[in-house]
C-alpha cells in the first residue's frame, strides 16, 4: 500500500510573465515559527542576531510581533528545537508557499489587493498583512522584488487574483 510521496504545488510551477511583472513560485524551503518572551533566548539558541523591531527582517528572520518571529532557511539546515528553554520553535515548512513578485510593476500589483502603502515600504521590511481577504506575509527583498508567503490552501486563489491584477 505504499505510495510515492510527490510534492504537489498549489500554483503553477511555470512563472507568470507580463510587461514589468514576473510572478513565480519560490523553491521549497524550511519555515519555523519562533515564539519567546525575550529575543535574547532565541539569539542564544540560534546564535544569530534577531531583529526586535516589529515589521523588520534580518538574515532570514522576520519579526512579526513583539514575541513572534518567522525563520526561513534552506532545506536541510538543522534548526535546534530549544527543548527546556522558555521558547517555542515550531516547524511550519509546509504550511505556506512563497511567491516571488518582481519587476517594476511589483508594488503596483501587490497594492491592487493589499491596503499597505508599499511605495513607503523600505527594502528589508517584512510584515503580516492581508491581500483582499487572504492573509499574507510580505517582504521587500529589493526595490523591485517582493516575497509573498501565503498558506497553501489560499495560494491558488492568490495566484489567480495577482495574475488577474497583472493582466489589467
Amino acid at each position: 500500500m505504499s505510495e510515492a510521496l510527490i510534492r504537489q504545488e498549489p500554483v503553477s510551477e511555470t512563472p507568470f510573465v507580463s510587461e514589468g511583472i514576473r510572478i513565480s513560485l519560490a523553491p521549497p524551503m524550511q519555515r519555523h515559527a519562533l515564539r519567546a518572551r525575550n529575543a535574547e533566548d532565541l539569539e542564544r539558541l540560534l546564535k544569530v542576531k534577531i531583529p526586535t523591531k516589529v515589521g523588520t527582517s534580518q538574515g532570514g528572520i522576520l519579526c512579526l510581533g513583539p514575541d513572534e518571529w518567522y525563520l526561513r532557511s534552506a532545506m536541510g539546515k538543522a534548526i535546534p528545537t530549544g527543548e527546556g528553554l522558555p521558547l517555542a520553535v515550531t516547524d511550519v515548512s509546509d504550511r505556506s508557499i512563497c511567491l516571488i513578485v518582481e519587476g517594476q510593476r511589483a508594488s503596483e500589483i501587490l497594492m491592487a489587493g493589499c491596503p499597505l502603502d508599499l511605495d513607503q515600504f523600505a527594502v528589508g521590511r517584512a510584515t503580516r498583512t492581508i491581500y483582499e481577504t487572504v492573509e499574507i506575509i510580505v517582504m521587500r527583498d529589493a526595490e523591485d522584488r517582493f516575497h509573498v508567503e501565503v498558506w497553501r490552501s489560499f495560494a491558488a486563489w492568490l495566484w489567480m487574483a495577482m495574475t488577474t491584477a497583472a493582466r489589467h
Partner: protein
Amino acid sequence: MILIHCPYCDEKRPEIEFANAGQAHIARPLDPSGQSDAEWETYLFIRANPRGRHHERWRHVHGCGRFFNAVRDTVTDKFETTYKAGEPRR
C-alpha cells in the same frame, strides 16, 4: 480607509487589518464563585454604550496579532489614541 495606530508595530496601519474586541478595561472578578448571579451577569453581559468617547479593545489580527486598547469616538469614528494592553486607562 481609516488608519489605526498600532502601539506594538508603532505605525499607522489600514483598518482592514484590525478586529474590534469589545469594551476595554473589564477585569475578570478574582473570586468568580463569590459573585452573586447579578454581579456575574454584569461582568459577563452589561456593557457601556456611550455616544462619544469610548474605550475599546482592538486586535491587530492581520499584523502583529496583539490586543491593545483604543479610545474611539462612536459618533465620528475617530481614534483619539491607542495604547498597549495593561497600560492605565487614558
